[in-house]
């Protein structure tokens, strides 16, 4: 076989060093795009999907105005009917909370806290820290005096399982209310803020303490994909009427979307930059090799190769450079993203602690990557397109030379 691709392949290896250098440069560029993309999409994915690190959920239902005033009086009217009517996918997790600010007093001091009165089983599904109890256990369902505190709070107040605490709150009727609780467990959380301020008691106990009866302040819904949040929230809004407010995580923390578009923009700019360099690399390589070999193209034309054949010959060479570069780039890029999906390639835990708080969620400071062959194929395709595109110029230039001029060259 002495077809175009064979000749192009052999020509590539005449300037072995140049081929290896440009292939490595282009391949590393591609690898960088793949690794960067894998890192960022895992990061953004984790940030959006794992809202249970803070118990935020994908959307929430509250009484209208609750987010603004945080008043204990603003409970959801007809809670049970609303829960019945709430349109959510079958796989959704739903938790109901009675919420309040309060003051926790122990033997070693006082701390301002935010009280979450929850149904333990339901809350477990939407709040990661309920699955990370480090001392003791989650209180039993009928435990009216059990309280869970975070590690940081336990540290500050020197709390142990079994210690007694007094929780003081402002009741829905405006009066002060207080009750005694006993520490049943200490939870771990990625978020130091939550670890220091959040305490959990049973919903029944909270309702009793606050005097809100069978009602509650917040319904938290967690679905499978963050991308579907606004659709389901929209349906809930339509179904539940104006007495309630339905907000997605992105409504509550606009920084999510802002951050995402910022990151996507950064990826785009970075990728364009890399592809630009890839293009320059291929253009340089092809121009050099075409100009050096102008006379050979003249010989080919003299032997009867059509201008289109010459064009194809140059494009074929570019195709091979792209193929080698893509093979190298995908090899490196996918290896790294695969390794990175198992154990963190970038770990800032030492410097920043286990978690980095960001817009209502917490990311692990040990950054994993997303391993996705599909996601890597697009940048690979771009390398091919770029290679073909930039090779068109030298190819066109040499193919339209008159054979007599090409033969005189070099």
């Amino acid at each position, binding site marked *: 076989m002495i077809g175009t691709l064979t000749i192009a392949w052999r020509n590539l290896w005449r300037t072995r060093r140049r081929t290896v250098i440009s292939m490595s440069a282009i391949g590393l560029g591609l690898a960088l795009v793949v690794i960067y993309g894998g890192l960022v999409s895992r990061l953004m994915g984790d940030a959006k999907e794992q809202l249970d690190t803070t118990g935020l959920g994908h959307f929430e239902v509250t009484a209208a105005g609750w987010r603004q005033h945080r008043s204990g009086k603003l409970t959801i009217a007809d809670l049970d009917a609303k829960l019945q009517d709430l349109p959510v996918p079958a796989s959704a997790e739903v938790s109901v909370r009675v919420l309040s600010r309060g003051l926790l007093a122990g033997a070693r001091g006082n701390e301002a806290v935010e009280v979450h009165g929850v149904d333990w089983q339901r809350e477990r599904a939407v709040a990661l820290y309920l699955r990370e109890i480090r001392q003791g256990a989650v209180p039993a369902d009928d435990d009216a005096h059990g309280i869970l505190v975070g590690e940081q709070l336990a540290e500050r107040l020197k709390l142990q399982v079994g210690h007694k605490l007094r929780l003081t709150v402002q009741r829905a009727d405006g009066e002060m209310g207080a009750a005694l609780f006993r520490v049943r467990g200490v939870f771990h959380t990625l978020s130091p803020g939550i670890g220091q301020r959040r305490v959990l008691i049973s919903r029944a106990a909270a309702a009793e303490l606050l005097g809100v009866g069978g009602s509650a302040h917040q319904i938290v819904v967690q679905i499978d994909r963050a991308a579907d949040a606004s659709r389901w929230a929209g349906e809930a809004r339509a179904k539940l009427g104006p007495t309630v407010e339905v907000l997605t995580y992105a409504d509550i923390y606009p920084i999510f979307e802002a951050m995402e578009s910022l990151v996507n923009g950064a990826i785009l700019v970075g990728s364009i930059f890399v592809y630009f360099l890839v293009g320059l690399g291929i253009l340089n390589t092809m121009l050099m090799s075409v100009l050096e070999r102008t006379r050979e193209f003249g010989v080919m034309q003299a032997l*009867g190769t059509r201008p289109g054949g010459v064009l194809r010959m140059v494009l074929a060479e570019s195709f091979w450079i792209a193929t080698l570069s893509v093979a190298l780039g995908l090899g490196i890029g996918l290896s790294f993203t695969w390794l990175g999906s198992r154990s963190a390639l970038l770990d800032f835990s030492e410097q920043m602690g286990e978690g980095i708080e960001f817009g209502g969620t917490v990311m692990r400071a040990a950054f994993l990557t997303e391993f996705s062959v599909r996601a890597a194929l697009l940048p690979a395709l771009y390398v091919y397109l770029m290679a073909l595109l930039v090779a068109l110029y030298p190819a066109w230039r040499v193919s339209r030379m008159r054979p007599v001029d090409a033969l005189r060259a070099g």
Partner: protein
Amino acid sequence: MPAVEVVEVEKHYQAGATTVRALAGVSLTVEKGEFMAIAGPSGSGKTTLLNLIGALDTPSAGALRIDGVDLAGMSRKQLADLRRDKVGFVFQAYNLIPVLTAAENAEYVLELKHMPRAARRTRIGQLFAELGIGELLDAWPGKMSGGQQQRVAVARAIASMPAVVLADEPTANLDQVTGKALIDMMHRLNHEHGVTFIFSTHDPMVLAQAERVVRLVDGKIASDERRGETVAGAVAAPVA
């Protein structure tokens, strides 16, 4: 039908403000089976004429017919096809394609004509054997001597049985002995297979082997001799 017909051909080059008349009205007919040399001093237009006959360049005026096909108005693609089908080239600098072996160089032309692989191989094998270069089949151009490369170049030029083989100073890069051997080989091909050759040269030894010598001076045909006689009808211009 003649292999080559050149009718009142002019070729002008623009060199700054002045126009160089590289060919100034050349008419020439080369019959099939001729073994013809183009002679003349440097700058007399030998290369220019061969390039025009080989459809590598286009004339400023006049007509060219190769194997009866008029080149006027042909597209670049049609000219490429014409070269592929009707013209073979032997260059001064051999110009083998360095990434192809000797056999592949010769095969390349046949592949352009879409000859099946097996037929190509057979044909090239026979041709190389006949030319006594069978041992060079798988050799790379870079590993061959000049004489070997030029023999392979001749094989490549005649592989597709063109109407005419053009050779611009084919022996200029070879020593006397090798050059003579090459011309002998070309001559044998001309005798035994009727291959039409037109070659240019400065070398009197090479000229002596030609059966017809066309002498160019200042872009005009000064003489046209066959085996020592001047052929009547050639445009004889006075030597300046």
